[in-house]
């Protein structure tokens, strides 16, 4: 059945390259999460706002990001913007696409979390003389992040996995891109991708466990 000799030694020699790629993957994931969270807070507030000017565009962003494939969103950034003369590099397109996606999903998470916070919290803060913004920042947001922490961790893991989609738009510096590069040159597809899979798995696990540790230190109440 197997008319093939597995060449693990050859593939493992490429490990340093793969690890460099893994660092780029993490960089993209972290950047997209940081920006995604920032946008998501704004989107969540906008969606709850009574003004149509705020809630309508926010809803469009959230619904499009959640009802179309992430790959489509990346294609839009890379190919679609070309119609307007905006040419994003594979790196920028991947980052933009994943950020767009993160923001949409997290906005929905944050919206649910905000709904779970009793309205009386804001009343109590306002009654102490705090302006709205200050009350939101000091009282509402910390509680919102606490409630949303687990979904946020999941989104981070998804962001890491989503970076692999970059190969379809020519990305070659992240883990999947480097792997594909090596694959195209050496044709050791199975071995090299298997090693990449292990690295992805370890990164995903490290993030999940790290997040749990972080939670136990941050949320001691």
């Amino acid at each position, binding site marked *: *059945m*197997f*008319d*093939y000799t597995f060449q693990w030694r050859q593939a493992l020699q490429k490990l340093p390259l793969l690890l460099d790629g893994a660092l780029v993957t993490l960089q993209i994931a972290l950047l997209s999460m940081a920006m995604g969270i920032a946008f998501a807070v704004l989107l969540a507030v906008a969606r709850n706002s009574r003004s149509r000017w705020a809630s309508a565009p926010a809803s469009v962003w959230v*619904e*499009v990001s*959640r*009802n*179309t*494939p*992430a*790959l*489509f969103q990346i*294609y*839009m950034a890379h*190919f*679609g*913007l*070309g*119609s*307007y003369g905006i040419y994003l590099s594979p790196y920028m397109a991947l980052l933009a696409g994943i950020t767009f996606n993160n923001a949409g999903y997290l906005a929905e998470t944050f919206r649910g979390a905000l709904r779970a916070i009793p309205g009386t919290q804001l009343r109590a803060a306002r009654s102490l003389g705090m302006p709205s913004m200050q009350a939101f920042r000091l009282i509402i947001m910390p509680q919102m992040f606490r409630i949303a922490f687990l979904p946020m961790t999941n989104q981070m*893991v998804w962001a890491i*996995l*989503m*970076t*692999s*989609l970059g*190969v*379809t738009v020519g990305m070659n510096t992240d883990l*999947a891109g480097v*792997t594909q590069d090596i694959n195209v040159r050496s044709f050791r*597809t*199975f071995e090299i*991708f*298997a090693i*990449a*899979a292990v690295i*992805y*798995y370890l990164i*995903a*696990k490290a993030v999940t466990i790290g997040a749990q540790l972080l939670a136990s230190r941050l949320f001691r109440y």
Partner: protein
Amino acid sequence: MFDTALTLSDLMFLLKGAGMTLAVTFFAVTGGTLLGLLFGVLRAQISVWAALPLIFVLDVFRSVPLLIQLVLANAFQAIAGLNMPPFATSCIVLALYTSAYCTEIVRGAIDAVPTVTRRAGRSLGLTWGQDMRFIVFPMALRVALPSWIGLTLGVMKDSALVLWLGLIELLRSGQILVTRLQEPMFILMVVGAIYFLMSFPIARLGGQLEKRWREDD
């Protein structure tokens, strides 16, 4: 209104791609749900320690990018001389991927059925099988359905990745048109609209079901 070179037959081409998307999704979700039911019931029954190997394997499916899984599966079947068509490979990989998430949904839904209710049934003389069929299943279904709908829609969106194995699904069809017609934004928006139409109504339905069933309680 729109000054475009997109013809009706081009639109048909896109819809054919959508058909491929739906076909892959159908097989993946069917297979994945059946496996998910099996594994989920298993997980709910046996202890965590005994289920550890299964937990590990399913966790791997959720922690490795789908694209990598597709490439690995395709490479493996080539090495093993199986000569499987990319459609089959894709469906199998997606089904296993779906089952990993479905297992958790099923297990969670079964656990959500109050033990006291199940004990009441068993005390009346129902067998384990009857307990499952008449007590657990109806109650667990309510809990699982909204999540399951979410999973199905997720798989439909993830199915875009099978383009990497050469399948002409919706997104790839769009890309082919873009290469030919050079109107990326417009064509991609049509593609996006088709995805949106396939997803949004069902997502809304799921949300309403969830709300209605929650109010019933």
